[in-house]
């Protein structure tokens, strides 16, 4: 009896040890990121894992902008863009998802098929056309243009949300219709309140887009005015050959600062995120 118990304890220990080892592997680069950001040396440290001298100077420098690094400004810019993108994208995604999931109309299937086909194209290539379209509306070098690029096509990413709406019981909607509710009321007052997970999921994913994108942003904000950059281009430019030696630790510090709010967002919203994505991924 006793033997069995110790056997079980050792299984648990081994089990948790395995997870711990995996977690360490996963966290090594992150730890390195954090450590390097506290290094006193401004270039890349290639000889030791931990910095030779610790310092918070790169964080201080980040908040004292020079002509290259204007982190607070970038952060603000990205935050503004992210907020607008997030609102518009979420609206678009939910609208398309609801229309294709709950409503029935003749063009529904053709539109959905077209959506699938459009998703298959390498979007990278269409970039130059998007750029010149924006330019003809005089929207390059403006946040409005960038927000449009991030959110205008967001309707194409409706599949996960549609999958979620598909799980909303049909009978409820029918009953409401019989009670004389308008479609709009069903959408706003019945289905949306039931869909918190998928809303959270959509909000998080669309909020993250401007923080991650460096290709479109670089192309559209092409006037070279550093104070107009988003965090992604700003940090990306720090790794320029002529700058990396003076800015690598600042790049790391910037990376840490961007990751903190996103991590917190993720940790708090974890539950909804999992529910939202699986509600949708279940159906694909």
């Amino acid at each position: 009896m006793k033997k069995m118990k110790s056997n079980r304890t050792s299984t648990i220990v081994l089990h948790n040890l395995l997870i711990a080892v995996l977690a360490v592997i996963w966290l090594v680069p992150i730890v390195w990121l954090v450590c390097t950001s506290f290094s006193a040396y401004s270039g890349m440290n290639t000889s030791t894992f931990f910095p030779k001298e610790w310092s918070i100077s790169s964080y201080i420098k980040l908040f004292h902008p020079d002509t290259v690094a204007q982190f607070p400004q970038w952060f603000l810019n990205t935050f503004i863009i992210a907020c607008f993108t997030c609102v518009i994208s979420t609206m678009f995604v939910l609208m398309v998802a609801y229309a294709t999931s709950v409503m029935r109309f003749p063009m529904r299937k053709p539109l959905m098929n077209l959506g699938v086909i459009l998703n298959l194209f390498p979007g990278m290539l269409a970039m130059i056309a998007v750029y010149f379209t924006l330019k003809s509306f005089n929207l390059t070098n403006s946040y409005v243009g960038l927000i449009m690029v991030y959110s205008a096509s967001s309707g194409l990413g409706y599949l996960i949300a549609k999958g979620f709406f598909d799980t909303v019981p049909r009978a409820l909607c029918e009953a409401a219709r019989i009670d004389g509710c308008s479609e709009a009321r069903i959408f706003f007052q019945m289905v949306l309140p039931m869909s918190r997970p998928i809303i959270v999921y959509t909000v998080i994913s669309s909020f993250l887009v401007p923080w991650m994108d460096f290709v479109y942003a670089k192309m559209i904000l092409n006037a070279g005015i550093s104070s107009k950059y988003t965090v992604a281009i700003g940090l990306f430019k720090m790794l320029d050959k002529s700058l990396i030696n003076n800015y690598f630790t600042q790049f790391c510090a910037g990376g840490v600062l961007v990751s903190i709010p996103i991590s917190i967002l993720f940790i708090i919203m974890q539950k909804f995120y999992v529910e939202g994505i699986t509600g949708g991924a279940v159906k694909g």
Partner: protein
Amino acid sequence: MEKKERGTALLAVKGFFAVIAGFFADFGRAVSEGDAFVKLSLLWMGAGYFKRKQYIKALLMTILEAAAIIFTVKFAMSYVPKFGTLGTVQMEKVFNMKTMKSEFNDYDNSFTILLFSLFSFVVWFAFLIVWMRNVIHVYELQKMAEKGKHIPTFLEDLRAYKEEKFHITLLTLPVLGIAIFTFIPILLLILVAFTNYDQNHMPPNSLFTWVGFDNFMSLFGGGGLTVTFGYAFIRVLGWTLVWAFFATITTYIGGILLSLLLNSKNTRMPKLWRTLFIVTIAVPQFVSLLLVRNFFSNGGIVNTICSNIGLTGFLRDIGLVSTSYIPFLSAPGWAHVMIILINIWIGVPYQMLIATGVLMNLPSDQLESARVDGASKFQIFRKITMPYLLFVTGPALVTDFVKNINNFNVIYLLTENVYTTTNQAMANSQAKEVDLLVTWLFRLTQDYYNYKMASAIGIVVFVICAVFTLIAFNRMIKGDREGTYQ
């Protein structure tokens, strides 16, 4: 089974054409059987509404028609007539000393002509549909009037957009956004593949024009411009497919295993562990990947450690490495494996989240009865958990595969400016062994302005994705499952 699937696909196509045919039939009937005002609506779109005393609608339609005419005259006519040649007037300029300014002639820009002609076509097409629908609708009004039914007022019409036409309210803006920012650019891209838009023909300084199928000929080695383009294409395509396969499978399996591990009863503090893994998702990819790339660079920290502990020396002794460093991200083979491993690092936590959610929904009654029957853990996993997971996440697997074919970020961030190919034939076509089709064509446009070839490759990528998705979707999604949960 197969037959049935092909049947449904066929049915969908058939249905699509039936809708179109019906639309034209309605239009024809409206024109032939409509009264004078319906016929007048062909010219003046507000006419039919005017007759039925729907004055506001009549006014709106008239404004729309006027807008379409103004658009055509003021905008479209300055581009569309040049669509056939893509412009003939070369840019010329003269410097005027008096104003200190350059004065340009009224030159053509092939790209703008192409883009705005396309834009005009799309607008015209949309207008054509509105125009035809308008006639059909006016004819319906006529019939309603003949039967003495109530003609809806403007407010009643508007209310319909909250009721049975609510989908139009919902879809208009998103569809417009997709049309302008995705659909038109993609059409443009397709057209560019049939032009000679490259470094020697770059607007605004010079013009480009149509060349037919020349670019596809040179892509497939049919006596085109570069000898090695076809050679490079095959290799890049091969790696793209290998990558997409492994990237999808490894993260998928890894995610399931990790979530099983974390959700096991033996795990202490599962929330904490899960959070630790999630942190890696939260660091923006361009930060984490650029970091990892420096981590593994030839002169990077991992190499320093490896050479300090003698691993580099050992690998050199057994002949795996010929250089004084381990070429983690700079030699073929090594780089390929590392890229997939790093992608596991990036992708597994995300898949773990999905798998966690799915596992939570496992049908518990089945599990319980299996346990009662004395099934072993492994048997339960193999017979119940795994089939359920596959059933539920199978379609997502296909989407992931397509996403990985076009996975720009991982490859670009890990290899750009770091990886140097030692294959001269690849180098002669500006390709690298680790390139995906997307990163290759990104370089072709960004560094070599070879838009025509990039577009041709883009079309090929599309065809591959489309074929794969069609086959896979038909196999994995058996029919339309929308109704399952409703």
